[in-house]
């Protein structure tokens, strides 16, 4: 019963996503909309503007450093939440 309901939710989702996959821009095509001025600037001027030859590092710690600050916050939040969950509650197995 539970499996049937899950299928009922998942199957329409899957069909829609397969239709979507057919309509997306072709895979690995250099003319895709994602290859616009944004990655071009990263690869062409990243070394000069941020200093690291690893462009992914340039992006995560310079161009989009705010995201990474929040990302470390996510890790911190998870740890604090785990401590609150496990240490804040007693072991009252009934």
């Amino acid at each position: 019963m539970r499996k049937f309901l899950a299928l009922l939710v998942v199957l329409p989702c899957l069909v829609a996503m397969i239709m979507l996959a057919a309509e997306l821009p072709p895979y690995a095509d250099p003319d895709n909309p994602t290859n616009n001025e944004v990655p071009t600037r990263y690869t062409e001027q990243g070394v000069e503007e941020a200093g690291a030859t690893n462009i992914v590092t340039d992006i995560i710690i310079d161009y989009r450093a705010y995201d990474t600050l929040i990302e470390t916050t996510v890790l911190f939040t998870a740890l604090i939440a785990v401590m609150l969950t496990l240490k804040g509650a007693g072991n009252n197995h009934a």
Partner: protein
Amino acid sequence: MVDKLIGNYPYLIAALIFAVGCYTVLSHSNLMRKVIGINVMETAVFLFFVASGNVLGGQPPIIDLNNSDVIYVNPLPSALILTGIVVSVSVTALALGLVVRIHRQFGTIDADEITEIRSNDNA
């Protein structure tokens, strides 16, 4: 349509994995399997992101200072997914912590049994 689907096979695979993950979360009552399902689902999204940044014949985006005419893949999705992976690790850690606590307090990690115990508590 089939041609395009075959050309876009990473997106198709991402859709399939996403559906499998979603189904795993919804159909199983074992909490550990739910946690695994969540991870599978997020992996599918990461695959989708990274695939959208690939360029035919592209090199990894680590600049070769001596050679200027290299095609690099789009570095932005990889950078985003690095963040995404850490988020997914954090969510998994908290989920495991909660499962440990539930096991300590209820003595089981089966969602149906927990529901039964809780309804007995209320009665």
